[in-house]
């Protein structure tokens, strides 16, 4: 067992995959120069081991980073493109949505696009409106794309490895505020985490909370508090946004009869809606209470702490909503 941060675990996974498969390479801004730089240690040392053909420091050219990854994937390699955060990834949506996601289908299956694009999401203190966005739901909307959102170091490692081995284009969304989170990693184990498989973090019988990325941690805190108030909560970390693990959520809600979906991003148009609608549609007659959702109000992220706080879904809010669901129940 090794103790590792989320950023270290993901870097470790990239190195493992690069050792395993010579076709795997990475491209992005500052990849070979950011030795030890605080926010960028996801690549520390990789240039030394793999050289500049496989760790490619790019100009500030987001469209071409993404476009080049698509071209390189079509041409027989397995690129990992790093756009740093989705806010910069917005400069390269076209290449991802119009090209990466469509090429296999449009061309009648003649080509595959086995690329991974890293675009971190999430609130980080004081990063304001253009460095905090979470658009996992946008990509879930695009046929052809896989979307993963790991919440722990082990899942970061296991899901990156699975994403690199996946023949579909995968949008790999780390959470900026989790990069420093520590966890145990069994380096003797391959540690692969299957795409599309949720993880039950805590078993319960009264209420199911479904969350992903940073909100799984906040939901676990809320579940502790709910337990003190005699509500037994099951917490499911979705881990993959698309394809999401319907079976796991259905099985849990069939047992508890109550579902609360918690997301960090703006609720309107968010992925929580998809889960809520699907479960409501399939389990309507078995539910003890209407399906509930929590997410951010439809406002940009403000800079000052008092403004930023309005965007955060805190554990207290989840507890309140969980209690409301239990009290509002028909049985």
């Amino acid at each position, binding site marked *: 067992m090794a103790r590792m941060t989320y950023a270290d675990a993901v870097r470790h996974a990239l190195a493992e995959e690069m050792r395993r498969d010579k076709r795997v390479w990475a491209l992005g801004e500052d990849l070979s120069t950011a030795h030890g730089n605080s926010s960028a240690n996801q690549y520390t040392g990789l240039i030394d081991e793999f050289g500049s053909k496989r760790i490619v420091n790019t100009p500030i050219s987001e469209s071409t980073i993404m476009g080049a990854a698509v071209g390189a994937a079509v041409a027989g390699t397995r690129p990992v493109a790093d756009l740093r955060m989705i806010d910069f990834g917005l400069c390269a949506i076209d290449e991802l949505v119009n090209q990466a996601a469509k090429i296999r289908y449009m061309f009648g299956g003649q080509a595959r696009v086995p690329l991974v694009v890293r675009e971190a999401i999430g609130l980080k203190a*004081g990063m*304001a409106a253009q460095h905090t966005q979470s658009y996992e739901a946008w990509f879930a909307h695009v046929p052809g794309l896989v979307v993963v959102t790991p919440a722990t170091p082990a899942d970061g490692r296991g899901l990156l490895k699975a994403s690199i081995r996946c023949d579909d284009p995968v949008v790999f969304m780390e959470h900026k505020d989790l990069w420093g989170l520590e966890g145990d990693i069994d380096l003797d184990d391959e540690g692969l985490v299957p795409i599309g498989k949720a993880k039950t973090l805590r078993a319960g019988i009264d209420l199911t909370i479904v969350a992903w990325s940073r909100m799984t941690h906040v939901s676990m805190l809320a579940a502790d508090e709910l337990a003190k108030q005699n509500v037994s909560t099951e917490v499911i970390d979705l881990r993959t946004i698309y394809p999401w693990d319907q079976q796991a959520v259905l099985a849990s809600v069939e047992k508890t009869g109550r579902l609360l979906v918690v997301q960090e991003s703006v609720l309107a148009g968010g992925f929580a809606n998809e889960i809520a609608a699907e479960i409501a549609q399939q389990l309507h007659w078995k539910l003890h209470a209407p399906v509930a959702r929590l997410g951010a109000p439809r406002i940009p992220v403000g800079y000052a702490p*008092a403004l930023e706080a309005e965007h955060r879904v805190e554990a207290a809010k989840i507890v309140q909503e969980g209690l409301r669901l239990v009290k509002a129940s028909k049985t």
Partner: protein
Amino acid sequence: MPNPDTERILALYRTMHLIRTFEERVGVEMQKGNIYGSAHQSTGQEAVATGVVSQLRKTDYLFSNHRGHGHALAKGANPFAMWKELFGRAGGTCGGKGGSMHIADFSVGMLGANGIVADGATMAVGAAQAIRLLGEDRIVVAFIGDGTINRGPFSEALNWAKVYELPVLFVIEDNVYASTTLTKTVMAGQGVVARATAFGVPAINVDGNDVIAVSDVAATVVADVRASKGPRLLHATTYRVRGHLALDKMFYRDKKEIDDFMVHHEPIGKCRRWLTDHGTSASACDTIANEISATIERAVAEALAAPQPDARLAYTDVQDRGAPVWHG
């Protein structure tokens, strides 16, 4: 012997000092944990903002980038309000909504720092179209980093500005680095002047550590742009003394580089030598520095004492139709 230029150079000296003192204090307040988010300092680059903006009018438009404190101060933004913005307090330039990376003061034509590089270049083109449409007497200046010229939208903006002969001055503030990357390692060709020239945009190099040179060259190019001769590009070479962000361990460069710059190229010392060589006393220069230190001291103290913005403000200025509602 008094030089007729002394008043003008003293004003440049004062502005550079204001920027330097502001930026160095940013580092101090960052270390203390008083700045909530991150901040990019422009220490060492003061001559570029100061020299260029010295040729602008308050009514001219300025689009900045992520390293925008100097641009804002030179354009006349209020340092008291800027400190409140950095600390995320009520009364900040943006009411605490933006922070360092989104400092803006539309009342002085400072149309915003920016978290996304190169977007200022394309917006400058649009602002110039608007000026033409409205028949106004203004020009637009966009400050762009050396690393940013490799983004496609920058080339698109150059081409477009030339096609329509728009009143835009592109200023490339070349501080050698882009984050942790030496820009020259990821840039093909003969540099940004050659690129602009290829688009037919007249472009010129200037020593961005010599505020008098920047101001003089800016006088010419700004006059050309104002006279509707079309876009111009100014490539000012300088150096980033501090980290990319205020908290940056800087493993990617040799400290000797910084020392060398401070000894041989640092712009404020250079300007001060000009002043003292041309009849200004050392104590007159010191007085300016002291006045500015006192101003920044007061601005920081006042900002630290200011309250947080009301949480309800988070829900204002989002949109008119479908405006969000505060539930408390």
